[in-house]
């Protein structure tokens, strides 16, 4: 066991002694600071009375309906939401608040996390083949199984480190720019004909958790391709391509019921959040988790089998 921990430490040393890893942290930090600066710069003055503003907004909407500019049904949802805010005494979230910043950062930057982790995961095994170091790695006492497992465990921990860095850094940057307050900010969501509210910071953390699952699946695919094809470019390219373009493909395929069995239609669990809808009708959270689990096991078995059985000719 202590030797296995040594193997994981080795993988970590190799990941974090690389300049490219630190460039990724640098890009992430720059991104978070830039978004905070822009948000602070363009934020509207919010010192006024939010109740009066909300009532004004409702009156504007009603006026538009009376003038025939918009259909009544189209704004019904907005009106209900605004009324709910007044009734429940929930102040609308200001864009220049810590909670709103952390939420928007999560939405805009989740793809970057997939990108970074896929780049690291896609090189973990194939780089060793590319440089020939795989020969040294496999001619020591640890079995091929533990060498590959240590790499996967290291990838998992690296993903956790990236998420913790992202959340922690955005919290600190957001706090510095917008003040460490407003932790009880609530967002109002229209879900299934009902209006509900939830704590914005808590829902952001939940979505980070769901994004972690998604990132891990894409990282696993990059890791698997890296191991099976021993080709870094293919592993990184394919996983990033799918993560970016699958939403479009999914939209085209959504009329076919079978498309719900495609792995990539099930990796984004935020579609089951209140107010969102899954790609194909009738999909549930349990269904997606089950589909992911089955794909995960199949991918892992193929990857490990391929690594343990094949001749090393690098």
């Amino acid at each position, binding site marked *: 066991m202590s*030797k296995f921990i*040594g*193997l994981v*430490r*080795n993988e970590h*040393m*190799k990941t974090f*002694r*690389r*300049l490219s890893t630190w460039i990724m942290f640098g890009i992430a930090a720059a991104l978070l600071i830039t978004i905070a600066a822009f948000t602070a710069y363009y934020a509207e003055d919010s010192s006024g009375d939010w109740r009066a503003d909300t009532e004004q907004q409702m009156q504007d909407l009603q006026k538009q309906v009376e003038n025939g500019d918009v259909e009544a049904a189209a704004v019904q949802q907005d009106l209900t939401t605004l009324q709910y805010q007044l009734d429940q005494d929930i102040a609308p979230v200001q864009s220049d608040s810590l909670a709103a910043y952390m939420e928007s950062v999560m939405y805009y930057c989740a793809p970057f996390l997939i990108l970074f982790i896929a780049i690291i995961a896609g090189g973990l095994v194939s780089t060793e083949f590319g*440089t*020939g*170091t795989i*020969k*040294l*790695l*496999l*001619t*020591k*006492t*640890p*079995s091929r199984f533990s060498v590959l497992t240590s790499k996967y465990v290291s990838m998992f921990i690296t993903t956790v480190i990236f998420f913790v860095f992202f959340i922690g850094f955005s919290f600190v940057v957001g706090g510095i720019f917008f003040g460490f307050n407003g932790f009880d900010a609530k967002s109002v969501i229209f879900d299934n004909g009902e209006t509900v509210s939830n704590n914005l910071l808590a829902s952001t953390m939940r979505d980070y958790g769901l994004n972690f699952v998604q990132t891990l699946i894409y990282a696993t695919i990059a890791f698997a391709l890296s191991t099976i094809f021993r080709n870094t470019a293919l592993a990184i390219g394919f996983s990033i391509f799918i993560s970016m373009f699958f939403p479009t493909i999914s939209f085209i395929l959504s009329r076919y019921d079978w498309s719900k069995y495609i792995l990539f239609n099930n990796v984004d669990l935020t579609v089951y959040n209140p107010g969102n809808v899954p790609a194909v009708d009738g999909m549930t959270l349990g269904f997606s988790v089950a589909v992911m689990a089955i794909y995960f096991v199949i991918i892992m078995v193929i990857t490990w089998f391929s690594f343990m*059985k094949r*001749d*090393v*000719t690098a």
Partner: protein
Amino acid sequence: MQKQPAVEIKQVTKVIRGRKIIDRVNFSIYPGEVFGFLGPNGAGKTTTIRMIVGLMGITDGDILIKGNSIKTSHGAAMKHIGAIVENPEMYKYLSGYLNLVHFARMSDGVDKKRIDEVIELVGLKNRINDKVKTYSLGMRQRLGIAQALLHRPDVLILDEPTNGLDPAGIREMRHYIRNLAEKEGLAVIVSSHLLSEMELMCDRIGVLQQGKMLGVQQVHEMSSEQTQMVSFQVEPLEQAAIVLRDMGSKKPEIKDKQIIMELTRDEIPAAAAKLAKEAISIYGIQAETKTLEDTFLELTGGKEIV
């Protein structure tokens, strides 16, 4: 050589896509000896070495390292092996020291003291904290040997250890390998295409061609007990030829103002004495050892050797 062999290669066969790359190869390597592995390109040297260290599977037969099968007990077998397969590839963006830390973590009982000891041994002390990408090939080779020796193996496998080294480096490497075998009792397997190099370094040499082991030869046997071509620079030539006529197995030949004939080692001083007795002026006597290259060419039928 009655010792228990360090490495036993038993009837090893390797088939890749229906093609027999290695065909029932059989040999053993004993502690304290340097075994040279020789053969033309594509003969299967590297494939055999890869099978010994477990990088490639064995289609048929078995390889035992100190009695442990590489097929069934990889960990126990690899404990005894230190290897560099082809080039000494290390993590270039890490320092030499961190590379050694990396491999120390993969082995049992290698502490900081042992790492320092090995660094001292290969003479990399001054540059060990520099990144490997700044190293010369010779230094990488030394670092490769350091990582192979870290866990005190009984068997050292070096694929083309002198590849890319300058003459001084080759000499140093040769010295080093002989030392490890003689003083530390390691069994060393080296492969090389530099035949003269192998002759200076190895105790025994196995010749592989087209996946078959053509023969294993003792290096000393090869050079001392066989006859060799001896050339005499003497005056006058005709008289000398008559004097030497009944020595050796064949008649002396006169070529390029020299007498050339085949003699055993012991016959050379006798021939010189005879010439001196007849007052023939001797300007030089050269014995041309039948080189390993000649033997090698004979064994492989003179096909391309690179």
